[in-house]
């Protein structure tokens, strides 16, 4: 019982995430027609036919949000995934080989830290167009340095551990040692960070949409918020529901990520007892 109470945040987070994934998978079944088609009377408050109301051009908010779940999850997993791969590989290489490689890569991390990230994203999206995949990629590519930093620190401490040394002695190549022995053991904190990055990616999607920089052919939560901002007073459901959806998904990432961080971050382990 007591341990169940301990796990509440994790269970809650996983349940929320599972719900979101389910909605994303079921969206085409629930709302088979294009969610961006105006098939309903405009500005309908929530009722039985349109449980989350309709927008100013007669689009079903529930349909747009359901389909938008796919976009948000794509952003979360796509961008964080790109960041995870790039960050892990570059951070690991930097930490493992040291020397010049480390110097160059570390400067690269620093440089990305210096450049204002959102503007970089805005610039690329504004210039090359607000294509969904491009936006996902650029968000991912601006997030990796923090993963790289964590991975680098992990590798620095782990590479002297017994199993790594044993693998080296047994004649394994440096990449084998690094990616089959060191990285798997040090990936924990990076995973925890990835959950937070997922949250950031979802927020970035919303922020870009709010600035008018998202793909008009796709229904996303940020888009609904963007359209809804003009109707705070007359159609608050256009603002409240996407806001809630974002908060829910982010909450799930934070709850899962927080638990992961507690469990996997060596700095946060070991109580006084």
């Amino acid at each position, binding site marked *: 019982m007591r341990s169940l109470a301990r796990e509440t945040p994790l269970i809650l987070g996983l349940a929320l995430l599972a719900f979101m994934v389910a909605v994303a998978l079921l969206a085409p079944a629930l709302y088979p027609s294009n969610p961006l088609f105006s098939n309903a009377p405009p500005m309908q408050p929530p009722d039985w036919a349109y449980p989350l109301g309709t927008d100013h051009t007669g689009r079903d908010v529930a349909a747009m949000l359901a389909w938008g779940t796919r976009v948000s999850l794509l952003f979360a997993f796509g961008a964080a995934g790109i960041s995870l791969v790039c960050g892990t590989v570059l951070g690991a290489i930097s930490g493992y080989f040291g020397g010049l490689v480390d110097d160059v890569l570390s400067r690269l991390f620093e440089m990305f830290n210096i450049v204002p990230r959102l503007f970089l994203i805005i610039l690329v999206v504004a210039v090359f167009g607000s294509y969904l995949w491009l936006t996902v990629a650029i968000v991912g590519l601006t997030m990796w340095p923090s993963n790289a930093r964590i991975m680098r620190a992990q590798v620095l401490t782990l590479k002297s551990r017994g199993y790594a040394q044993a693998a080296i002695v047994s004649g394994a190549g440096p990449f084998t040692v690094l990616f089959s022995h060191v990285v798997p053991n040090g990936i924990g904190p990076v995973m925890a960070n990835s959950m937070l990055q997922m949250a950031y990616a979802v927020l970035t999607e919303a*922020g870009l949409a709010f600035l008018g920089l998202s793909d008009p052919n796709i229904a996303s939560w940020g888009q609904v918020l963007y359209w809804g901002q003009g109707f705070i007073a007359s159609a608050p459901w256009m603002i409240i529901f996407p806001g809630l959806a974002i908060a829910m998904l982010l909450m799930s990432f934070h709850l899962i990520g927080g638990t992961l961080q507690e469990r996997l971050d060596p700095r946060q382990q070991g109580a006084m007892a």
Partner: protein
Amino acid sequence: MLRYLARRILQIFPVVLLAVMMNFLLINLAPGDPAVVMAGEHAPVEYIAELRKSYGLDAPVLERLGTYLVKLMHGDLGYSFAYRRPVLELLLERAQATMLLVLISQFFSILLGTWLGAYAARHHNRIADKLISYGTILLYCMPIFWIGMMLIMIFAVKLQWLPSSGMTSFMSFGRPRWIDIAIHMILPATCLFLHTLPIYAKLARASVLEVAREDFITTARAIGFSERVVYMRHALRNALLPTVTVAGLSLSALLTGALLVETVFAWPGLGRLMFEAVSARDYPVLMGGFLFATLLVIIGNFIVDVIYTYLDPRVIYS
């Protein structure tokens, strides 16, 4: 300290140079011709070519980069295409508004966030801790512009207590200017404050919890200090280092975070200037903005170092 500073600048210089070069190339290689934007839709091809020439846009990009860097060394940030004014003048004008907003909200969110975090840590796993932890996460999960719209809705439209936007009031000229600005700043600063508060609360909670496990905290308890003194006087100061680090590093991140707030509240800041510069292909302003952000990071880092020496006597720079 001075020697340390000099060394730091020498160290950071290549990184800045690299960042400036990357910005330059990224911006200048982007599609969209500023000359076309400047000349307007009806302009003839010859005029566009002429404009390109007069702004040096016709040279190869690497040559332009060289010219830009040389000018930069002389403190010349160039001339805004869109405003037809020196970039430095524009940046300084708009940076004031942003820095005012950012620094004040940052000040309060560090202060209150740290206090909340320390309070939560002191009551670890108790109801206050849960409330603070979940409350701040929830706050953190709300998009910043969403918070902004809600604030406007409640305090400006419904209650009509505070102005919804801008920095200046035209309706009541009797007030001293600084009071006027302060009143206009309450909502946007609160918005930014609410957005960054969770970061500092979370950080303070984690690091106070960590410090609370240290031996000297047990010593303080053994001496018989009250829990409040133990946490606020002994644990907190030792736990402040991560907060200072994050605060220093986030100066430039805040600049961009301020963009959304500035958009919602029509605050005449740097974020909006840069955002509009993207649309206008106003390269010099964009580059200047990026450079400004870069310098902020360096200044932020430096301030962090100074505060470190104050907070932790073990840190010595030479």
